Every structure is written in structure tokens, then in C-alpha cells.
């Protein structure tokens, strides 16, 4: 098949950036979207032009590196699918496809379709852990964890940290990401001792980093390749309220 592409290109963070147009022919419909990009880049190299820079690594939907907004939707049209797992059979011969980077104040563009997601690291560092020094753990079966609790924590832990939720949100809010991280640990018995501290630190760090507020659009949930749901945001809001009121009570 043949596709026309309108791709955001930007030399570096200082450059203003622009759309460039390209046509790629003889794409197999069994190719992945990124394989189509490989062909485009080979084509550009052949013409002595610089290829389009994009992030990717595992190409199996788990590392969270790939990040493209396709026709306005982060990761493209297929539900719960990262762009590396999106295949060309989901497009029609002759389609024009618009490709842009994640756009958010907290995710500055580094080049073309590559952005910096350093802000996510900061949120994680603020409290996204359970303090468990190596060597000091008790037997793994010493604390029983009901299966339902475990499964719920696992639902949250499935987040791959790609940032599609931020890219999808009209406010560029990072609530879904932060909620997934907070909830994974807050749901588990091991996560209880640091629960309040963690929740406050992560939420406040998120706010300080320039992410927008959550006004319940729900676009994040729709864009999430791992099916993380809005329930976790509600849960984090509750955990935050509780932690805050305790903090105030303590003075």
C-alpha cells in the first residue's frame, strides 16, 4: 500500500518546528507503523536527507518508549495498543496520516517526534517506591495478600509510563500516570507505612512540574495502551484527601 505522511519535524528544542510531507510506497499491510517509518527513513537516507527521529525500543508494547500522536490520537486508532504494535492494515491505501510528538508543557520536544519525559522520573523519585533495603526482607509468604487486592494493584502496575495520558489530556494533566503509580503501592500491605507521605509527595511534585489539572475529560483513559482506568484517579484523590487531613490534624 501507499501512504502520505504529514510529520512534525523540529531540529532541536530551540527550533520552531514544522510539518513536512512524505510519501511511502510498497508498504506491506502486515508491517507495523514503526516499520513503515523505517522504510521512510531508509528512503530519506537514500536521498541524503536526515531521517525523522522517533523514540522506540522494545517494539512489543511494553517498554513505553514509543510515542507518536497519529491523526490526533496518542498511539493511533487501535484501542489499547501502543504505536509499535499498531499495524498498517488499520489504514487504507492512499491515506494521509498526520504524525506529531506528545505535546505538553512538561514534555519539551528534543527532536522531531522525541520528547523529554524527565518529569515522570521526578514524580517517581518523589515517592514511587517502598523502602525495602536489599537483604532486609521477610519471607515472601509472611504477609498474605488477598487475590482481589493483588489483582487491583496489578491493574495499576501495568502502566508502562509512556505518557500517552498526558498527551491525550486537553489540560496535559499527569493524573492517570501518577494515580497508577500511587495506587499500585498504596493498595498493597507493604505500601501502607509510607502511604500518606508517598501520596502527598507524588501529587505535589506532579503539580509543581507544570502538568495541568484534571477536569475529568477522560481522554487519558481512552488513550492508555494498558487500559488503566479513571477509578485510580478517584482513589488517589481520596488517598490524598485523607493524607492531607491527617497532616493538618497533626499541625
Amino acid at each position, binding site marked *: 500500500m501507499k501512504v502520505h505522511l504529514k510529520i512534525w519535524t523540529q531540529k532541536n528544542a530551540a527550533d520552531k518546528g514544522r510539518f513536512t510531507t512524505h510519501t511511502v510506497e510498497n508498504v506491506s499491510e502486515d508491517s507495523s507503523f514503526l516499520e513503515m517509518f523505517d522504510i521512510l527513513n531508509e528512503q530519506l537516507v537514500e536521498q541524503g536527507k536526515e531521517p525523522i527521529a522517533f523514540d522506540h525500543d522494545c517494539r512489543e508494547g511494553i517498554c513505553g518508549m514509543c510515542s507518536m500522536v497519529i491523526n490526533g490520537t496518542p498511539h493511533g486508532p487501535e484501542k489499547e495498543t501502543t504505536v509499535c504494535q499498531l499495524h498498517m492494515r488499520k489504514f487504507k491505501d492512499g491515506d494521509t496520516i498526520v504524525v506529531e510528538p506528545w505535546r505538553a508543557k512538561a514534555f519539551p520536544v528534543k527532536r522531531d517526534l522525541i520528547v523529554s519525559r524527565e518529569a515522570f522520573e521526578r514524580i*517517581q523519585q518523589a515517592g514511587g517506591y517502598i523502602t525495602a533495603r536489599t537483604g532486609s526482607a521477610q519471607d515472601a509468604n509472611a504477609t498474605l495478600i488477598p487475590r482481589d487486592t493483588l489483582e487491583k494493584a496489578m491493574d495499576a502496575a501495568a502502566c508502562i509510563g509512556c505518557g500517552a495520558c498526558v498527551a491525550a489530556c486537553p489540560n496535559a494533566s499527569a493524573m492517570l500516570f501518577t494515580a497508577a503509580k500511587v495506587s499500585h503501592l498504596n493498595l498493597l500491605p507493604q505500601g501502607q507505612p509510607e502511604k500518606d507521605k508517598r501520596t502527598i509527595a507524588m501529587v505535589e511534585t506532579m503539580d509543581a512540574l507544570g502538568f495541568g489539572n484534571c477536569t475529568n475529560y477522560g481522554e487519558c483513559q481512552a488513550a492508555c495502551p494498558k487500559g488503566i482506568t479513571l477509578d485510580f484517579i478517584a482513589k488517589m484523590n481520596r488517598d490524598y484527601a485523607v493524607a492531607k487531613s491527617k497532616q493538618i490534624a497533626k499541625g
Partner: protein
Amino acid sequence: MNLDSKIPEGPISEKWSNYKFHAKLVNPSNRRKYHVIVVGSGLAGASAAASLAEQGYNVSCFCYQDSPRRAHSIAAQGGINAAKNYQNDGDSVYRLFYDTVKGGDFRSREANVYRLAEVSANIIDQCVAQGVPFAREYGGLLANRSFGGAQVSRTFYARGQTGQQLLLGAYSALERQIALGKVKMYTRREMLDLVKIDGHAKGIVVRNLVDGEIEKYSGDAVLLCTGGYGNVFYLSTNAQGCSVTAAWRCYKRGAAFANPCFTQIHPTCIPQHGDQQSKLTLMSESLRNDGRIWVPKKAEDASKNPNDIPEDARDYYLERKYPSFGNLAPRDISSRAAKEACDDGRGVGPVVGGSRRGVYLDFADAIKRDGKKAVEERYGNLFEMYERITGENAYEVPMRIYPASHYTMGGLWVDYELQSTVPGLFVLGEANFSDHGANRLGASALMQGLADGYFVIPYTLPNYLAQNGAKNIKTDRPEFEECVKEVKAQIKKLLDVKGTKSPRHFHMELGKVMWENCGMARSKESLEKALKLIPQIREDFWKNVRVVGDEHSINNELERAGRVADFLEFAEIMVLDALNRDESCGAHFRIEHQTDDGEAKRNDAEYSYASIWEYAGPGKAPNLYKEPITHDEVKPVVRSYK
């Protein structure tokens, strides 16, 4: 070359305790004077960096992705082994040790393997304490499943994302240390050289992948945790950025490379769809519990709709050849059998490069027997993944599978302390050669990476540091300048060729040669052919590669070109090693050495050793050394899966 493996005295079960007691320690208040460089943030690197920082050392950690959480350990699906014996089914440290030695076809060092089995139980404790959500039973206890090559249920798992959950555990410990200022994390950096001072590893040179700056970092020791080299085949289940570069550059600085020809091929991957394919995706081997593997008996039927091929025209070749193991025959055996069927012209699926490379994995009988719902419950997510990639519904037409390069047992040689032949350079995880011999058992790589990082290096590294002292080395020394100059020269050389073919073109070409001649089955003839072809590709590369863009900004082409250049050199010792090892063992199958029914035939009298290759200088043949592998505990037997 000093190849003392430093195996401690005493009976096998006491060696590690003996070692720990006799190893030198660094006093807690002195630890902050030391600086440790950790390259890699996968299970091995992240666990090591976090644990050493907790002990009080200052750590700098490097990865090429934009976050340490994206290291390729993230992609592991199946599970992690540990000798917990939670199922009360007869597991023990000794049994895990025994299974691993046997699974490795008697080519691994027993003392290392025993230690691995010994610390395995602590790994699970550690991970659970960090919040890793391993699957549980209704009563709240941890669940287990069984995995290939074992008769006990010792595998812990977290849905199909065991690797991601384990890595998130190690990563969260790492992030905590970053926040505390004990670890400085450098992302989007690619290590391009090792700096030695007075013969010891004391620093690294990296390229900042964002602004192209060549940066230098010094430390009192360097830990290499950079993963495997499966991408030498171009197509593999590895991530796009996985490479041999870090290990190879250390090799060229004197770190010996062991058993490079031991590479594992996984039998159940989704076949290649065509020439545009960039990577192969693995599907859990558990599918073989219910799927039946077959190809048409006659080559003419290969292009037919499988549902139109009658039962008596199908060849269920694994069931036919291995009646007792059937479709569950070990990885290497079932991979080779698939290759033979396709070589025979009976492969199915699209024609790629002149032949059909796929076999059917058919669930029709399972669906008839247990119902679609039962099959969906067991494998629903895999069927979905298969459909996403191939566009086919495996409830209606049989899946197609084909083997793919998956894991590399070979790696930089290390002694019992995980120290390479360069003092001060330690190698952890898939990057070293230590524990899996000629073949790795499923769910044992995650275990090894975390064992190395959480429980081995925190004891063995201090032994080195205490004896060598904190040096507080500055990066303005001439040794650093020299390295930087060489790295820059190599980059300039790549950019200056200005040829006509892309780096990817050469990678594909190399991959084809390696897959055909040094893949699942190897012969003297095929290996000699590869030894002729590889230098030709390399020569062509240095004449005709075209690297567009410049070195001062993000340049994926330049990165790829550097990695391909290293693969083009590395491939040669891989083939030399396969040629030298004139026996079949584990995943290394020399067609000259097989039993009457096509099984690998080991030659313990002549090849019970690890082959260790030493760099001899540009254009010179490497030197081969041998570390004898002795079997004091587990007497070698013939593997039989009939």
C-alpha cells in the same frame, strides 16, 4: 592472561558462605569515599546500583533509553525461578542447581550455579517487599507455575509481565537512591569505551545521545550490565537498541569473551511477515501445552488453507519423532525440527526470501476437547497479541510460529566474583557468561540478573575496593584524553565514509549470514562460509556505509552505524567459537555431531571447557584460552527427551 576462577574452598553448599566470611569489607564510614560506575539499568544494573547506594557507595548509572525503566528486562513475560518449595513438591536449592547444570548441558561452572540457586529464594522475598505484584492464590499465598526443563513448580510470575514488574521493583529502589542523591542517573548515554589506569578499569567514555557530546566519567570500579547480543542476527526478540557495543569495546580493552557461540533460539515466535520486518515477537511457550505442531506432509500443500488440509496429509512431526514429550520437546529440539521441516519445503505462511518459514500451532483439538472458552481463559491474551500482529484469528485458523534468536548464554568472562579479566571491571546479568552453560532454562535469566545485582556484587565488589582503595581519579588524566580521541576518531570515520548504503542494510545482511550459517544448526562448511562472508560485509560497510546527519545532535543513524560496526567484528569470534567447538551441546548444534535420531552429541572428553577469546589487536586472530569445566557434583549424562 589470568583466568583464575577464584572458586572458594569447601563443599559446594558452603563455598558462598566461606567466600563471604573471608572477603574484605569496606567500613561503613569509608564507603562514601568510593565511586562506582554502573552501565545498564536492567534487572542486573538497577538492582546493583540501588543495593550499592543503600550500602553507602556513590554510584553513577547509565542507560541509552530515556528512563532506566525501559531496559529490555521489561519485556520478559513468563516468570522467574526460585527454590522456595512453596508447593511442597520436592524442590530444593540442590534441585534447582541440578536442573540448571543439566539444562546447560554440563557446560557451566558448578560453584556459580549453586550460589545462584542458593540466593534465589531471597530474590522473591526482596521483590515482594518492594511491592512486586506476583500472582497469588485465593488464600493470599504466592502462586507458582512450572516451566520447561523442570519437574517442580518453582516459577513466580506477574500476569504476562514478570519482567516489567521485577524491573519496576528494582527501578523504584533505584529512583529512591537517585532522590537521596546517592545515585546519579545518566539517561540517553551510550558507553563507547572503557578507560583503564594502571591496568584497572577506572572509567568510561560515553556519547550523550541528545547533544552528541563525548563525556568521560571516572570511578573506582566499573560494572557492566548491558544485556545480551542476540541482535547479531538482526531479527530477534531483543529491543532495537540492544547491542554488543559496550561488551565489545571492553573486549578490545582486554576483557576476554567467553563462549560467544552459545546463543539460544526460542521456538514459539511469530514468523517473519516479509522483508520489512524489524523485530520478532515471542509468545509464551505455555502455548505448546495445548497446541499441536504440524506441517503438511507434502510440499504442494504448503500454500493451501490449513483448514482444507485433511488430517492424514498433516505431519505432526514432534509427536511423531518424540512420542513421550511430543509438542513439549525442549526449546532447541523443537526449534531445529521446525527448521528441518521448512528446509524440506514444507514450511507455511508467506514466502520470505524464497521460502516459507513457519509451522502451524493448532488449537482445533483443544477447542474441540475443552471448548473455546477454556482455551480463551488460558491463552486469551496471547491470541489477542497474535491477532494484533498478524491480523489472523487463531481460534479459526492455526497459529503460525517459527524460532527466533532470544537469549545469549555467552558473554564477557568473569570469575566467581563476577570480575572480568580486566581488574575492576565486573560484568553482571546477560552480559556475562557465567551461569547457564550451553543452554538457559526458562525463567532463569531474570533470576540470574537479580542474583548478580542484589546478592552477589554487594559482597564481591567491596572485596576489590577494600584491597585497592578509593582513588578519587580525575578525568583530566591522559588515559581519558586518549580514549576520547579514539572515540571521536571512530565517529568521524563513520561519518566520513559517505557511501550509498544505510547502516540497517549492513545489519540485515550480517543477520542473514549469521542466521543461515551460525544459527540453529551449524556445520564446518556453513561456518567456514560465514568466515568468508563476514569480512566482505565489513569491508563493504567501511567503503559504502552512509551515515547522514552530524554528530552534534540526536542521530539514530550514527548510533546504529556504531552498533553495526561492532556486530560486524563480533560476529567473527562468534563463528570462530562455533567452529572451534567441534561437538554439539545445548543450543550449539553441529550437524556433524548428532545421534542417530538427531539429538545433540556432546564430547565431554575434549570439550568440557569454556572457550575464552582474547583480543590480539586489529586485524589479528584472537587468542583462545580454555577454562576446564569440572563436574564434582553432577555427573554428565545424555539428555533424553524421547
